[in-house]
């Protein structure tokens, strides 16, 4: 059943997908930093307030994934920021996250060598988001 985009239910399902992925488990071995996704508001897309996704990822597993205020996500070791519709493009496979970062469509803050070293893990994490059935607020 589809869950509301960037809701608590979505976070739970996303975490389960990450923890089910053997590809992520092996590609993210040694990862020990928090990752924040900042979803910027787009009122015209029925997404009026910015949200933050805080991901506590450790050594190939997701210990916790929570949705809260954008400010919380901004405190993470790595922060990726984009407007709501860009994240929707990533989650629906319209936009490849690596290409999005190189094009500046997704803005990355954090130690570049570390994130580049874990390219495969971040690609698999994106795959995990695409496996969560989502009800998008602009499609209501």
């Amino acid at each position, binding site marked *: 059943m589809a869950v509301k985009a960037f809701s608590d239910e979505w976070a739970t399902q996303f975490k389960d997908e990450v923890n089910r992925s053997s590809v992520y488990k092996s590609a993210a071995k040694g990862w020990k930093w928090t990752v924040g996704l900042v979803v910027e508001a787009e009122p015209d897309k029925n997404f009026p307030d910015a949200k933050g996704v805080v991901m506590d990822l450790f050594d190939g597993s997701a210990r916790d994934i929570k949705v809260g205020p954008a400010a919380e996500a901004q405190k993470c070791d790595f922060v990726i920021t984009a407007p709501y519709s860009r994240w929707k493009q990533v989650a629906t496979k319209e936009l490849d996250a690596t290409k999005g970062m*190189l094009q500046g469509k997704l803005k990355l803050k954090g130690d570049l060598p570390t994130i*580049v070293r874990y*390219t495969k893990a971040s690609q698999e994490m994106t795959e995990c988001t695409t496996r969560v059935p989502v009800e998008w607020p602009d499609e209501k």
Partner: protein
Amino acid sequence: MHDAGAGRMARRKVATQKPVEYADVEPSAFASMLGGLIEANVESRPEKRKDFDSLAARVGIFVTDIDEGVTLDFQRGHLVVHNGLEPKRDLTIRAEAGTVMNLSNLRIGLFGMPVYYDEVGRGVAAKLVGGKLRIDGLLGNLATLNTVTRIFSVAG
């Protein structure tokens, strides 16, 4: 007895120039990412600094699936990153975004040579053989390519 007037310390000129600069007022996201990656590598890894200080070459990198490129103008200890491909390049690497990222994940092995026999290396080699990774100017610039690869590499 202490003479206050005679104790002026000699002032040594301290180099403040950053290792990486951008030629354009608004560097593209790709330029910022590559420049940032090289700067972080050079500042944190002494072996990369040595390569960086010795390299003089103009290297173009073009990402075929986003149609965007940069030119890295290495000037022995200083790098100027240009948006787009500039003329007079020694080497030009053309590949898809994923392959460009994988180039940074090549491990460096014996004698400072990139490792092409592990999973990442085999993937890069396969792209090269399949024509999905093109390197123009390779003839005569193999040593430059290896040096650039070492500066880029985040693996290990």
